[in-house]
């Protein structure tokens, strides 16, 4: 139990650092508002090694901490919307046979963008934002793919395969 708590704290810290590191990596210059979502790497990893409850905990604690430190209530609401939608969809797809981490992560990226777009439309009370949807869909696929491949590689190296093996160590 204590070990698990420590690990989840560690992953939350990593997710927060990732959020900062990605601001230093100009991956999507020219597409306003699109980022790689490196923090999701930690969340996807925890989702696979522990489960949805632990992943939700890491994700929400990260967003609240970052939000209160550097953002405001709007940015928290905004991040939470994307995080909740994407985590639920990822957990659902993970149960469907035939999808790997990459597919689950792509779903996460796409649904994260969808969630944020819906909240953005609600906040500005304007539906013409929909025209941004195709860009966000493709961006979600690309970022989700990158994160999925990274998560796969990390799991191959530090957990050594089947789900939960990392936890038992």
């Amino acid at each position, binding site marked *: 139990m204590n070990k698990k708590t420590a690990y989840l704290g560690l992953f939350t810290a990593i997710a927060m650092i990732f959020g900062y590191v990605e601001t230093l990596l100009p991956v999507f210059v020219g597409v306003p508002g699109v980022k790689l979502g490196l923090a999701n790497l930690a969340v996807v990893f925890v989702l696979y090694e522990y489960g949805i409850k632990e992943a939700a905990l890491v994700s929400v604690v990260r967003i609240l901490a970052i939000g209160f430190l550097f953002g405001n209530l709007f940015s928290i609401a905004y991040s939470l919307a994307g995080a909740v939608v994407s985590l639920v969809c990822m957990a659902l797809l993970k149960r469907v046979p035939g999808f790997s981490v*990459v597919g689950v992560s792509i779903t996460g990226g796409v649904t994260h963008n969808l969630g944020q777009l819906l909240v953005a439309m609600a906040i500005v009370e304007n539906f013409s934002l929909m025209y941004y949807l195709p860009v966000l869909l493709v961006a979600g696929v690309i970022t989700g793919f990158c994160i999925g491949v990274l998560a796969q590689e990390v799991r191959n190296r530090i957990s050594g395969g089947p789900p939960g093996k990392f936890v038992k160590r």
Partner: protein
Amino acid sequence: MKKKDLILAGGICALALILWLAAQFFLPGNHRTIRITVDGELYGEYALEEDQVIAIGETNVCEIKDGRVKMIEADCPDHLCMHQKAIDAGGGTIVCLPNRVVIEAGKDDSGGGLDAVA
């Protein structure tokens, strides 16, 4: 990486392409005005032909020049709205989320699409 992952990725990209094409096809547009809304309420409508600088409240400033609109000032930290694509006769939208400012192309003036051709 499995086969279903690829189908999923391809499917979403295809959907995006269809949506994009649909938007290009159905919303080509011939816009002569822009509408600025703050908090969902109309702030003002301005002609695209007239070069001018518009202060939106105390938070944002946009500029109409040569039939194109760009946000040139915003008091938020990220300045995402200032990097968004300019609005021109073809339409478009610029959004400043922190200040809840939306600039969008006004009513379409292309005269009913197909009817104009027929």
